């Protein structure tokens, strides 16, 4: 293959790469817009529900003891002291062989 030809291949291929990914960009944009539209309509009701749900959860937690909700990265600690939580994460990390930095707990609760 001559160098000229390889340049043509390159130009052509890079264009396709850009074209494909640009098209994906457009698709995602459209998707997001459409879904946003849909969800907006739903969200008002849901928001209310979530609020009451949260209150219930908080109330429940309070019954047991003092609420200490701390956010550390992806972790939400609800009524658990940081020390215990860190320990738990260390154990699970050790046991599951996932580096701590990649572990994500949504929340650790003391029920």
């Amino acid at each position: 293959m001559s160098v000229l030809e390889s340049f043509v291949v390159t130009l052509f291929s890079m264009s396709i790469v850009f074209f494909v990914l640009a098209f994906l960009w457009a698709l995602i944009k459209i998707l997001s817009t459409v879904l946003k539209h849909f969800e907006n309509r739903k969200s008002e009701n849901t928001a209310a529900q979530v609020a009451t749900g949260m209150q219930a959860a908080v109330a429940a937690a309070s019954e047991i003891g003092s609420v200490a909700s701390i956010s550390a990265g992806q972790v939400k600690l609800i009524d658990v002291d940081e020390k215990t939580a860190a320990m738990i994460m260390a154990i699970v990390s050790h046991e599951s062989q996932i580096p701590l930095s990649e572990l994500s707990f949504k929340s650790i609760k003391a029920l």
Partner: protein
Amino acid sequence: MFVDALKTIWSDSGFAALAWKECIMIGVAFFLIYLAIVKKFEPLLLLPIAFGMLLVNLPLSGLMNEPAEGSSGPGGLLHYLYMGVKLGIYPSLIFLGIGAMTDFGPLIARPSSLFMGAGAQFGIFAAFIIASALGFDPQEASSIGIIGGADGPTAIYLTTRLAPDLLPAIAIAAYSYMALIPMIQPPLMRLITTKKEREIKMEQLREVSKLEKICFPIIVSVFCILLLPSVAPLIGMLMLGNLFRESGVVERLSETAQNALINIVTIFLGVTVGATAVADRFLRLQTLMIIGLGLLAFMFSTVGGLLIGKLMCWLSGGKINPLIGSAGVSAVPMAARVSQIEGQKANKSNYLLMHAMGPNVAGVIGSAVAAGILLALFG
């Protein structure tokens, strides 16, 4: 008589059959084991590759022998395990697991990351041009170029299809340079971007809804496979794995794809790819050229990503830090971490990691697309 018998064993042993070429290969295998264990160069693949290379260069082991025709004797162990590479099964299954491990959220939150993921494929074609000029045929040049995709399974998949002879050199180069990303990229990043650009703090990404995350793999599969059918085994499995992850209804399958399945396949893939590195195929000038071209490919890809980053920085009125462009080479998540580190060097309060994950995962799609084009052109 005993001495005779010992002589026979000796002459049937690998010691007698050992040539200097194999010795060199064994040395190379030792060096790769050293890199994998001590330097922690992508050990999940380099360690099996290196050990496979070691085993196959101990003479007469017959581990890669095909079953003798007309005989009932079986072939070598690695010959059978290699089938999964030859038939393109292992790379696809690894992509299934990678898909199940990948969060495309940052990409969906800022889809313009896709352009950086596209720009960072430039190294593939830069290396392709140079390799062609150096006399490699288009199939070989494509396989060499794909090293710049910084994506192991894609590189292995394309190479088994186009230039199987180059498989060990390309796989080793790809995984080695991926491990070297923290050394290859920073100088180029500092060279191409200004201090001011590197200091740019980016807006927090919006939250992505579950529904978007579920639709994403489906849309990407449909569109990419329709446009480039040859990419179906890679993109299809990547997106199936991601759908397992995001759907939230098949956690069992997602978990197995991320663990037992990908690990088993990684062992088999690594050892057998290493086992293709027999001396006669590996100890050539070609291999050195591939290693050199691979480095160039990585560098050009980095530059490509950064340049698109700069362009987008300018177009967005300085809202986008061009440092995240280099993460477009994929090499997930190493390249994104490098962006984070360089960003913080310029500005202590700069957190680019999540922003760089967008181009980073876009790079995986980009490389697969590039591989699909090369397959369509030269397959």
